[in-house]
């Protein structure tokens, strides 16, 4: 296993861990963090595998994609956090309302 693939598999691990927390944890802050960890996992997969270029510098395209992805993740996280604050303000609870209680 090359180093590149090792990093990529680590990225997969982060992705899986994040997904676990996203499903299992009820606290919204944890869910938001979980999504961030998943995102980092995907970014790691993208960049790590770019290292497989036989000679010369690594493939720059995935790097550019990751920068784009990070900005998107920052934006999404900011929106999620503010939304979380509003949910806590209106319901008093940092978790999703029961959909059946409408």
């Amino acid at each position, binding site marked *: 296993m090359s180093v590149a693939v090792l990093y990529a598999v680590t990225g997969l691990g982060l*992705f899986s861990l994040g*997904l676990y927390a*996203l499903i299992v944890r009820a606290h*919204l802050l944890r*869910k*938001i963090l979980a*999504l961030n960890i*998943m*995102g980092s996992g*995907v970014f790691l*997969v*993208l960049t790590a*595998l*770019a290292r*497989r270029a036989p000679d010369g510098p690594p493939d720059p*395209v*995935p790097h550019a*994609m990751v920068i*784009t*992805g990070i900005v*998107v993740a920052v*934006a*999404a996280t900011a*929106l*999620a956090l503010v*939304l*979380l604050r*509003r*949910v806590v303000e*209106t*319901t008093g609870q940092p978790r*999703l*309302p029961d*959909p059946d209680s*409408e």
Partner: protein
Amino acid sequence: MAAEHVSLLPVLLIFLPLIGALLSFVFRRRAAGLGIATAVAVFVIAIALAFSLTRPQRYPVGGWGAPLGIDLVVDGLSLIMLLMSATVGLGVSLYAGGYFHARPQLARAFWPLWLGLWTALNGLFLAADIFNLYVTLELLGLSAVALAALGGSAAALGGAMRYLLVSLLGSLLYLLGVALLYHAFGSVDIALLGERASAQPVTLAALVLMTVGLILKTALFPFHFWLPPAHASASSPVSALLSALVVKASFYILLRLWLEIFEPLNPGRGVTELLGLLGALAVLWGSLQALRQTRLKLLIAYSTVAQLGYLFLGFPLAAAVGPAAWQAVIYLALSHALAKAALFMAAGNIVLFGGHDRIADLDRVVQRLPLSLAAFAIAGISLMGLPPSGGFIGKWLLLEAAIEAGQWWWVVIILIGGMLAAAYLFKVIGFAFTRAPVSHEANAVPPVMEWTALVLAVGTVLLGLWVSPLLAWLATGNPFGVGP
């Protein structure tokens, strides 16, 4: 590096709403005017594109061309989706002009967000690059969530939160699929991937990840749980946008990937049958839930769950009879967009007028809003699949495909779905005729809101009569390939 002359119209469809969003953000007081002007312009350009497009066009942004650069592609399928978003978008813009007139606080948030969402939609329908699709998908998701939360009620915020989490999860699954495909085949251009991709584990893994991510966003059963609360608790113009357009976008991506990358690799009947089965369950479950609802907007939202189910019947049917099934599905999607927008608008008028959306007490309201009721009924006819309507044509084509395929179970689902739709819609329409005391506290509904609902509803009837030109447009560039 100057490319051959290609039409700038597709580019304008992305940049006009973006510029509109920026301007309406800076010049807040003029937001509504700017928004409506943008909407009219986008609509006109979409129509112009429809009449000028004779063969599919590829537009290399920056002049680089795939795989280094990003290409935009217009073919019949994108064209129909663009027309759909242009028509519903114009309708919603006019409606929103009336709706938000009395709520300037919300209006100034609505216009830039909505125009941003429109940018994302048009960009998405034109994209030919799976990473670019990811960016448009996120732009779409975030603006949709922000719009869904605009209502500000606890239900709206909770619904938006859930929507955001699901949307982000879907995007990440999709992005992981993009990463796999790029690193396996060295391109993110859909056409190149279609040429290079071969049936191997990494392709299958990408297929599964991307499909799961996208059906999450499309709210296919059993991932539909987030849709009804988010769509029902949003403010009415937003509900119309979410149900009519936003969910179609992720379906569109799925369809594109499927047609150009995955289907030629023959991933096996298991995949298509499973998607079809989930679609069938969505039709049944969504309809039954709609029948159970006591609130009008929730009923309409569950109806969306059901109607989205039909789209997935295309997978098994296209595997059996070829492109005709996709034609049917796209026609259904188009009709649903108009009909659902009209329904949510009419429901919005009813809520605005009577101050509530309890179905059992609607009789006090609907009789005094004959235009909205007419819009509701006419749009309902299309959802039931009764003639003359686009929904009828779509259902006819789908039935034809199912019968030709000899797959009778889908036939039964399609027919039962239609009857259930009639049941839950007539549950509402029936109240138009009961004798009810006239309510006293009623808010005036701006006429433009009633008329736009009605015009969109009548649009579904026109879709039932003006079929062949639309099908001819859809066939531009043969987006569904040739049948088996």
